[in-house]
């Protein structure tokens, strides 16, 4: 079913769709408003799949430790996997420089004033990468717990970070973001003893209230605490992704993307 050839017009909605009434016409549409972005995201995902790489979208509020997590991850995995990073920020090349200092290719997208990355920006950045030479591509989204949740970039998995320095009720305050997570990382866990108002159990229960089955792992990138859980998850996801694509044509899609449940065009009866 599409909306170009008219096959979405049914006997039930034909009148509604085309019949002019007193000089005006009503057209029923039923199309996802982000269809343009989602089409581009699908195209990006096909790119990733055809190169057998795993694409991870990292999201959190500013300062939760996305770049620090990447630095620690690169240190741990540099001998096993080839990693690439797309950095999204409003301004500066700082984060890309931190990643390049680890000997890993990084491309900085500066959004000017935009609060999120979208699928088109990521697609443009892909031209900067030798995709066939990569195993894992991390996309570090703009630090923001609101807007990035609405834009599919073509990633296979969403990882959302929540740092111990924030409130443990963040999942309840930003449900759209945390619901989209395939994995939630409680970062800066080394600070938990001094930040005693953050209760990890409470944070996880707020996450479960969102009907989320995402694993909840606490770690400290700086102090190298409990990185194993995260690295194990990453390895497993990469293995699964490789088994699925490109041979089978199936792909992994992150949870909570609204378009999963709502196809672009539906018949309207």
């Amino acid at each position, binding site marked *: 079913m599409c909306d170009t050839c008219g096959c979405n017009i049914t006997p039930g909605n034909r009148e509604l769709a085309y019949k002019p009434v007193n000089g*005006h016409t*009503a057209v029923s549409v039923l199309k996802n408003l982000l*269809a343009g972005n989602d089409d581009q995201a699908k195209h990006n995902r096909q790119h990733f799949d055809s190169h057998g790489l795993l694409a991870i979208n990292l999201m959190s509020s500013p300062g939760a430790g996305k770049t620090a997590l990447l630095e620690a991850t690169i240190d741990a995995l540099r001998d096993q996997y080839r990693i690439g990073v797309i950095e999204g920020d409003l301004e500066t090349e700082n984060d890309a420089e931190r990643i390049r200092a680890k000997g890993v290719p990084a491309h900085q997208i500066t959004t000017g004033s935009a*609060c999120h990355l979208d699928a088109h920006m990521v697609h443009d950045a892909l031209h900067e990468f030798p995709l066939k030479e990569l195993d894992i591509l991390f996309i570090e989204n703009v630090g923001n717990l609101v807007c990035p949740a*609405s834009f599919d970039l073509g990633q296979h998995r969403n990882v959302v970070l929540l740092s111990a320095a924030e409130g443990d009720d963040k999942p309840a305050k930003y*449900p759209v973001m945390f619901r989209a997570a395939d994995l939630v990382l409680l970062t800066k866990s080394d600070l938990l003893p001094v930040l005693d108002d953050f209760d990890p159990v409470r944070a996880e229960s707020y996450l479960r209230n969102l009907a989320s089955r995402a694993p909840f792992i606490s770690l400290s990138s700086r102090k190298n605490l409990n990185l194993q859980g995260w690295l194990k998850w990453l390895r497993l996801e990469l293995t699964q992704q490789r088994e699925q694509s490109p041979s089978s044509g199936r792909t992994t899609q992150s949870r909570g993307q*609204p378009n999963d449940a*709502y196809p672009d065009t539906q018949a309207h009866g």
Partner: protein
Amino acid sequence: MTKFLLPGREVHEFSLCEALIAEVEQIALKNGALRVQSVKVRIGPLSGVETQLLQHAYPFATAGTLADGSTLEIEPALLRVHCEVCDFESKAEPNLLSCRACGSHLTKVVCGDELMLMRVELFTT
């Protein structure tokens, strides 16, 4: 470094409005319309879109397009979940998506995350 400095992309409701207008204009052109009279969208509480911001962005995003001067009607969608454990379908809140009947977290959102263009009314003569 790729720089994106497009004015008006600060708020994602505005980028969304632009995508909406692009879609609406396409429909208007396809139907040979002179201009757009009204646009109806359905937005769920879990879509991540603030309806007031969308309503506010609309006149700015439509300026100079075929939808200039048209009205935007926003139909709020209900938020409902289906429980995989007890098979019950219940109302939910954006930050409380567990089953109202048995309390299980093993639920799926049935509706409430949609972001849909529903209907466009066009002036054809």
